[in-house]
């Protein structure tokens, strides 16, 4: 729909939007630009174009950020978190949507409260319990925490998908002799697929980027994730900004590609909880 806005307000609107684009992209453009420049050139002028496309900075950043360790741990941690969350959340979403269990209202309200519970409310005792059990630094143990944090929002996203599947579908499966587990696996789960993809993408990225839990529990050289390895460069590489920017490039570029490819799912997942429509 075209508005009848005056040329002036049309221009102001465009200035605002283009300004917003520049602000959003400027820091990322500076990363791309300076990842190929030596430290002295960055200090002289962070806006200058690189003179060559040398990958030296990237080699130093790869070692300095211990990315070869970090990428394995990040994949293990985010992958495990995503699998646990998907499995547990889809089962719970089915059960809560069908309202067959006693106390489903209470459980729903519990998970609703859990969506906004502060991490600090359970972090400190949990850490010392983990320490006592000797599982600090264990990616599987940490992924249980990240899964627990991601569960409530995932349950509500998936529950909306189950609700949109009519109860008749369950009943038909029941008439054919399927038990509820078979109904879930062979009928409901395939129908929930768009929801499962959305939740998987959001949970994976959340865990990939997560800082508070990850930095607390994945301490130690061999346990660090990509983000933690990169963080360890901050400060020690203050006089090698080229490597620091190359490290940022290594960290950020795959996330941007991942996001651009899957942004449709991303945006639908982010807005479905907040927008009634």
């Amino acid at each position: 729909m075209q508005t009848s806005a005056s040329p002036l307000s049309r221009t102001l609107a465009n200035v605002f939007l283009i300004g917003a684009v520049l602000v959003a992209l400027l820091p990322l453009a500076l990363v791309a630009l300076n990842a190929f420049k030596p430290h002295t050139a960055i200090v002289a002028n962070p806006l200058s174009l690189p003179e060559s496309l040398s990958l030296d900075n990237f080699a130093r950043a790869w070692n300095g950020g211990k990315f070869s360790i970090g990428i394995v741990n990040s994949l293990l941690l985010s992958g495990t978190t995503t699998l646990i969350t998907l499995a547990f959340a889809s089962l719970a979403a089915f059960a809560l949507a069908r309202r067959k269990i006693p106390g489903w209202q209470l459980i729903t309200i519990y998970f609703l409260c859990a969506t906004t519970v502060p991490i600090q409310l359970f972090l400190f005792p949990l850490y010392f319990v983990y320490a006592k059990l000797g599982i600090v630094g264990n990616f599987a143990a940490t992924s249980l925490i990240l899964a627990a944090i991601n569960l409530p929002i995932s349950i509500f996203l998936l529950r909306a998908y189950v609700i949109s599947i009519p109860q008749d579908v369950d009943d038909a499966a029941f008439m054919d002799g399927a038990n509820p587990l078979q109904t879930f696996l062979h009928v409901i789960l395939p129908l929930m697929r768009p929801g499962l993809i959305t939740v998987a993408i959001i949970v994976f990225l959340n865990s990939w980027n997560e800082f508070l839990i990850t930095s607390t529990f994945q301490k130690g050289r061999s346990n660090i994730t990509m983000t933690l390895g990169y963080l360890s460069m901050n400060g020690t590489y203050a006089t090698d900004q080229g490597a620091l920017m190359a490290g940022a490039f290594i960290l950020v570029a795959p996330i941007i590609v991942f996001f651009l490819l899957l942004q449709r799912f991303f945006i639908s997942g982010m807005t479905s909880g907040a927008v009634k429509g």
Partner: protein
Amino acid sequence: MKPLSQRAYHVLFVTPALLLSVAIVLLPALLTFGASFSRWDGVSAPAFVGLDNFEALFADNVFWAAITNNIQWALIFLTIPMAIALVAASLLLSRRKSGAVYQVIFLLPYVLAPVANAVIWQNIILSPVSGLLGFVSKNFIPLSSPLTEPSTALYAVAGVDIWHFWGYLTVVFFAAMRQTPEEQLEAAFLEGANGWQVFWNVTLPNILPTLGLMLVLVTIFSFLTFDYIYLITQGGPARATEMLSTYAYKFAFTSFQVGKAAAVALVMSFFGLIASIVYVRMSRASLEA
């Protein structure tokens, strides 16, 4: 063996999620509650000390400074990114084709890791040596780094966090605004309403539930804010950016006063709880719809 009833199956389905959440969130939260009345270093047996931790907190200037900073943070986030996002989203509304491209760009900072965003801003923008700020300072107007000044540090960190966050609000508001019935918009324009009148009389009333939800969520997260503060200033300089979250974290993992950390965590949760009650009421209304 007798086959399980339908209900038994459904109970089994909800059990893994519930057990995990209870083990990781609920039980440790109860331990936090207990720890707040104890002296505990995290390793040896805790000793019950009654309200000592809370009394010590209330007598500590840093505690009040942190609460003030959290309130300031909430006020900043309830106004600035909200206003930017409302303007941006309503501008996108009349650009349905390019709007899709704009929202992806605006969302980019939101999907990047806080660690990456914080290090990028610290070094290539705000650093007086290697950043854009240093470049401007050396060649044009002298500027000091806002991060090293206690009077400006909070705004500088908030600026970085707003840069990362406003796109999320824009996308949510844009999605909500697109639900506005087309007839209402057309009727308003036929009557000769200008952009502002359309926003105020048609779009805004239509997104009121979403706007309310976002105000509540932003309030909750303002009292929990941690990542950008801890990454950029660690609460400094001179506690100018100390938040309840960083204050609690240091108690737990720097000085191992877990009882005090737990007490701060309860205060944080209390602020969140007030907002959560509002949130649950709003969500329940929409869940029952």
